[in-house]
């Protein structure tokens, strides 16, 4: 049984993009498109989720994701409660399901969950009452589906179609839940060539089985690309044996104007944020004309509105 879909194939929870049918992905992107203009109105709100209570359950810190979820929920007229659990009852030893049960007793309608442990959102989704929906806002190394969706929305907005694109994902794929969600979405939406580029130590073994081409040389990997997605290099990786130094990494896998010139002249550059300037991306590229990094943030609101609206509507029918 697919935990994410109802018996009649509607979205019930959003936990991963792995296995979600193309029709659902397209429906989310189309719905997001119609939410785009709400941010431009005098009253930046629609009444769809009026009276619903949405809990942002962040067991791991986040600024951008939590804030855009909060704005998205408020634009849908929901009531939003933010909980940074890293700093509250978890430190007092409360079990995760006790926290969830307590919030459900406060009449929660939706949980948005971020957790350092892979599978945390699934765990909660399996536990909650039928009228409660769960959105995974990032679990361990596993998935970050709304980030993957907003990246697809960004690509569609700038490139129009998926069927004729070459997309490169560059950097620390091994530790990246974002990369996993992107790969699933890109292949489902019919992108013919998805490349992953990075040092051997930062690419998971068997990544080819996800339907991607592997490159260890950035120059070769970027040639002819339409879309370049840079991943954040988590600084803590430098402390282990995976990488020699940030300078060394930048030399081989940092996106500079010279390396960008190898891609197609109209290639777009994306990054899920937060960026390490001078480590995985040169400031000149990050702030340059081919960068769509800030539009990604804006689109994230419309995409998260779409997911919440699809989850909340008809949920009890």
């Amino acid at each position, binding site marked *: 049984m697919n935990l994410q879909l109802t018996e009649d194939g*509607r979205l019930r929870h959003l936990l991963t993009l792995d296995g979600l049918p193309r029709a659902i992905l397209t429906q989310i992107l189309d719905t997001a498109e*119609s*939410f785009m203009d709400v941010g431009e*109105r005098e*009253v930046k709100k*629609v009444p769809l989720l009026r009276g619903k209570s949405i809990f942002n359950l962040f067991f791991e810190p986040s600024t951008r994701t939590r804030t855009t979820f909060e704005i998205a929920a408020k634009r849908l007229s929901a009531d939003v409660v933010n909980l940074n659990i890293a700093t509250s009852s978890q430190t007092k030893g409360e079990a995760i399901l006790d926290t969830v049960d307590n919030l459900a007793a406060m009449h929660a309608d939706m949980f948005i969950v971020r957790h350092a442990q892979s599978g945390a959102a699934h765990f909660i989704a399996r536990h909650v009452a039928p009228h409660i929906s769960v959105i995974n806002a990032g679990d361990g190394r596993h998935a970050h589906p709304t980030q993957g969706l907003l990246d697809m929305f960004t690509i569609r907005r700038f490139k129009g179609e998926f069927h004729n694109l070459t997309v490169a994902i560059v950097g620390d794929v091994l530790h990246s839940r974002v990369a996993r969600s992107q790969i699933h979405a890109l292949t489902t939406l019919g992108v013919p060539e998805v490349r992953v580029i990075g040092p051997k130590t930062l690419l998971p073994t068997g990544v080819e089985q996800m339907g991607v081409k592997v490159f260890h040389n950035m120059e070769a990997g970027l040639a002819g690309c339409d879309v370049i997605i840079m991943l954040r290099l988590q600084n803590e990786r430098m402390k282990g044996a995976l990488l020699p130094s940030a300078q060394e990494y930048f030399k081989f896998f940092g996106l500079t104007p010279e390396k960008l010139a190898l891609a197609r002249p109209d290639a777009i550059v994306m990054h899920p944020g937060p960026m390490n300037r001078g480590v995985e991306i040169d400031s000149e590229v990050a702030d340059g004309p081919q960068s769509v990094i800030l539009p990604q943030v804006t689109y994230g609101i419309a995409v998260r509105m779409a997911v919440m609206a*699809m989850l909340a509507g*008809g949920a*009890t029918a």
Partner: protein
Amino acid sequence: MPASLPDVDPLIAQLAGAIAPVLTPETVIVGIHTGGVWVAERLHALLGCKQPLGMLDISFYRDDFSRIGLHPQVKPSNLPFDLEGRDIVLVDDVLHSGRTVRAAMNELFDYGRPSSIRLAVLVDRGNHELPIRPDFTGLTLDVPAHQNINLSRLDDGHLTLSLA
């Protein structure tokens, strides 16, 4: 009930005639997706309206959202003018319960505060559930509750009414 439903074009011409006296150069015409936009397009042309045509998709304002969910094909609303202080003629194809019109008014007020809103419908079929009545009507019909009256557009752009 008439055996066959009348042609749409004369009804729209009649509506335009009724609206014409209240039209000023500042009045805007706003159609509700999908049938209301078709009628509004005709009225806009017939009346030689100076302002761009407005279009509303009320999917985000429906009162049955929590029961039936989001319509899978939501079209963007497009109101290419400032609503503040405007006189609006709101156009729909069929007035039934009045819930669509209520949702449309709620949406309009999220864009600004119009000076006035008048309602023009091609067909008022009765069975109202809200205190909403049209200011301009092409045709008044007494359609039984279990039947629906629909406006459809053929490939050549021709509009027709049907009963189902």
